[in-house]
């Protein structure tokens, strides 16, 4: 919340018609309506996620980032690519914060082919991806066309290579900047295949609504959004941080989990020997020998990061704090009730930020009936996951 993106300087902005913003909108014209719709959307997000639904807690998410020529476009500052990178850092952070037992992988598409930047993995430093990526990116020049579908064979390969347990959700999030796709084969067959594999595809468009994406997301049960500006982009990304409702067809199963302890061997200890982490065996790029690590309680294989699925015995290895952090998704907070400001009786101050309630509606907690403004409502539901005044009253009693 602290890094509210700074509004771009006037002279940096594109051709704007500032005088038109000042126009009164009584005729139901564009600006007011769209803002109204967006406001409703903000609320919708809160509503949608707070039913009693099963959520796919163990997520396997691939982010496909289109790095075609259109990424050079400067409508996001300084350009779409840099802006996307910045937001992706934020996204990966948030993602692991909210879904500690999930995994993420990144694929970039360019020059009519797709490249897997990182495979599905548990927690890793987002800084690292970006660095790798930037390096790669600047050594190549931008490509001509972009393609979503070239990402798929790659994706399918990685998805099917790994054994995916039935209870995990398989998701793809496409950041789609271009307006065209070049496909070697019929894209509709591909959509069918994805549907068959139960992969949920969501798309965030950076420029405009493309028909094929609409169909793609509709068929696979994902969502399709087009950004308005950078703030909206961030909002949309945040939307994908939350685990989506699990599809009814995914299996329910009890999962065996291991909780390995982090053994730290000091250098001074003569007995300790540096050893390889199992997860770095197949890719040479990672660091080699380390001293300490997590040891699988079942087979004693060593890993440097959690959560991970043990390569030797297939046990899911997590740490207790991870599970605890996912906990709130299971017992979500009820949505606050919306009430028009005129009908609200009581002091017109938000219980949380103490600001004056100025929007046309206020939000009431159904338990302690305190009033909040829309921003705090979102903050409470998105970040805190508990009502501050409820907790306050609990501690006093």
């Amino acid at each position, binding site marked *: 919340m602290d890094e509210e993106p700074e509004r771009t300087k006037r002279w940096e902005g*594109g*051709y*704007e*018609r500032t005088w*038109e913003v000042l126009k009164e909108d009584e005729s*139901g*014209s*564009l600006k007011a*309506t*769209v803002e109204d*719709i*967006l406001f409703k*959307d903000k609320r919708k997000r809160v509503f949608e996620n707070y039913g009693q639904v099963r959520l796919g807690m163990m997520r396997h998410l691939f982010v496909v980032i289109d790095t075609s020529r*259109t990424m050079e476009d400067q*409508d996001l500052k300084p350009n779409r690519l840099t802006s996307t990178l910045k937001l992706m850092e934020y996204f990966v952070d948030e993602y692991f914060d909210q879904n500690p037992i999930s995994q993420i992988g990144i694929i970039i598409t360019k020059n009519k082919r797709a490249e897997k930047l990182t495979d599905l993995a548990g927690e890793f430093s987002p800084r690292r991806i970006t660095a790798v990526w930037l390096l790669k990116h600047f050594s190549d020049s931008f490509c*001509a*066309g972009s393609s*979503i579908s070239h990402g798929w064979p790659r994706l399918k390969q990685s998805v099917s290579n790994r054994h995916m347990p039935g209870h995990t959700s398989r998701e793809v999030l496409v950041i789609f900047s271009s*307006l*065209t*796709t*070049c*496909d070697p084969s*019929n*894209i*509709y067959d591909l959509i069918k295949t994805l549907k068959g594999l139960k992969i949920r595809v969501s798309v965030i*468009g950076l*420029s*405009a*609504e*493309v*028909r*094929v*994406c609409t169909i793609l997301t509709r068929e696979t049960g994902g969502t399709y*959004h*087009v*950004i*308005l500006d950078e703030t909206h982009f961030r909002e949309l990304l945040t939307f994908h941080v939350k685990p989506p409702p699990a599809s009814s067809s995914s299996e329910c199963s009890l999962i065996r989990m291991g909780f390995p302890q982090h053994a730290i061997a000091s250098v001074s200890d003569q007995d300790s020997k540096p050893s390889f982490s199992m997860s770095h065996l197949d890719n040479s790029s990672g660091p080699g020998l380390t001293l300490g690590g997590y040891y699988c309680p079942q087979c004693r294989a060593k890993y440097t990061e959690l959560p991970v699925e043990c390569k030797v015995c297939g046990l899911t290895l997590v740490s207790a704090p991870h599970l605890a952090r996912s906990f709130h998704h299971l017992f979500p907070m009820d949505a606050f009730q919306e009430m028009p400001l005129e009908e609200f009786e009581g002091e017109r101050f938000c219980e949380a930020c103490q600001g004056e309630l100025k929007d046309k509606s206020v939000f009431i907690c159904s338990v302690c009936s305190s009033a909040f403004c829309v921003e705090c409502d979102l903050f409470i539901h998105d970040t805190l996951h508990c009502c501050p005044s409820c907790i306050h009253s609990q501690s006093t009693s």
Partner: protein
Amino acid sequence: MKLNIEGLLVYFPYDYIYPEQYSYMQELKRTLDAKGHGVLEMPSGTGKTISLLSLIVAYQRAYPLEVTKLIYCSRTVPEIEKVVEELRKLMEFYAKETGETNKLLALALSSRKNLCVHPEVSSLRFGKEVDGKCHSLTASYIRAQRHSNPSQPICHFFEEFDALGRQVPIPPGIYNLDDLKAFGRRKGWCPYYLARYSILHANIVVYSYHYLLDPKIADLVSKELAKKSVVVFDEAHNIDNVCIDSMSVNLTRRTLDRSQANVETLQNTIQRIKEIDAAKLKEEYRRLVEGLKEANVARETDIYLSNPVLPDEILQEAVPGSIRTAEHFVGFMKRLLEYLKSRLRIQHVVQESSPQFLKDIYEKVCIDRKPLRFCAERLRSLLRTLEITDIADFSPITLISHFATLVSTYSKGFTIIIEPFEDKTPTIANPVLHFSCMDPSIAIKPVFERFQSVIITSGTLSPLDIYPRILDFRPVTMSSFTMTLARTCLCPLIVGRGNDQVAISSKFETREDFAVIRNYGNLLLELSGIVPDGIVAFFTSYIYMENIVASWYEQGILENIQRNKLIFIETPDAAETSMALEKYQEACENGRGAILLSVARGKVSEGIDFVHHYGRAVIMFGVPYVYTQSRILKARLEYLRDQFQIRENDFLTFDAMRHAAQCVGRAIRGKTDYGLMIFADKRYARADKRGKLPRWIQEHISDGSLNLTIDETVQLSKHFLRQMAQPFRREDQLGLSLLTLDQLQSEETLQRIAQIAQQV
């Protein structure tokens, strides 16, 4: 839902209604109440057809004596089918709501080609062939011959229909073309003749314009339709051109040569008949002396729709003696042909009026005006007497006879232009005689006079007041309806300058200008980068498009555009165009994105809809003025000025703007659709042009978007496209641009609805 429109109970087969539909029905009801004619403009995609049908059907049920029949004229077969489907929906709703079975008979009528079920005849490909073959199997004398010669082939479908079909009327219901065919097959009746016979007692008839406007066809089909009918012309923005085309005749040397052959055949046949059956010719002679009294009686009793080709005076007289006998008539035709041939042997352009032509023909070959007028009737009678089976072969001579009758009947409203060559190819001799009608009111006059109410409606009829003037009638209602929108889903922008500040325009003086062409190219290039899926670009003419595209190719612009989208081009060839169109849609469908380059007034601009992703942007390069150097046009403009006090410029602008509106209107086909409308010409910003756009487009052009540069256009478009890509649900529309029954009854809504219609 059930609506109460000023005291009339209207069943409307949907749960929701657009406010403008309600308003439209109100206006329509007023027109019917006043028993007058109406001109109504409502944007496409707002449910014109269903509003029309619901109201008129309701009116028919409420006042069965006031309105007996609805005649719905549409342009193409798919549109006819669409109307029938809407009607079916309406009738199902009626059946559900009232519980009674439907007593209405509604049917579509089309040509033999679309209705024939005869296994051999229906396999023919061209309409003319089907007509000719059908005639050769069903003509009365063929069937008479059958009695003496059983091996004579006849159509048993027609025989069955003739024997039984007239006694038992077709059961009530809704019949589209396929239903008619299925019914015909089941019963073994000819669907075409069944339909033609049934329209006399059908409650609703859906057919093409020509059945009412083309005098040759109207005479056969629509003659006996009841006077208390309501006639609707849908998509009527080009109705004046249809009227003019139906009355105009073009004669080439080829027509004349073929007529010559026809005359020879006639002569031989007469010779042969004379030897074997002279009595027949005598009988014909006797009939001609009696004259066309029958037709006259019928017209006086007001049973028939009058035929403008057959004016009143002719009916009262007998066929003149000079062409009464068959030989004389053939001789007469020969002289006429020779005269026409001599007229076509010219080196320079000739333009003259009908009286001048008549005077000349009298002086040169001694043909009087009177026999000329009877030419068409006389030829028809002769063909009947001679039992010619293959009518299609005689179309050239029939054309000549029509020409002769028209030229001698009308001294005003027509002009004769003889051109030795086409304008495009001045070196190749290809003489043409244009007998061109300049007054659309001649063809449509009988319709206005005969029927109680005639409704002219379309998505683009602006400016409304010009239609009553050029069609010469007095409407009781003239209204334009806007589209109520929950979000502004259309974005008309007028691009007047390039980024280099050079004014862009397709004006004759600047159209070859390198900078203008480059700027047009840049505009398309920039837009191809930001508009998703499909873009349709319209040029003013094929030649202009060729020039520009060639120039873009040289400048490398085309190559850059192709990086963003595929390019397809409309050509004058129909097969090629439909192929291009199909591929274009495929490219839009699978995300490759495409641009369709087409021409205003072409096939694409008139009949094809670009719904949703098929047309996210329409670009109109230049103002689509009609080719002003054409002599026919010049003559027409002059006539309009003299007769209707319409200035040349007004008419040209009106014509250009209605086509521009047609083109850009292709993009928006409903309220959930959205699209950019880009007018790339400086001249659109001028009030006289802008003011002639339909109201529903005009009101979205803000003063700020009048003279944009390409850069500004791109910024605005980008913004617009992003706004439109935000989720849009039905709930957002409810109450604003979509109403439930409850909402419709509230006072506030009714007040708002009252503002939608703008009376002119």
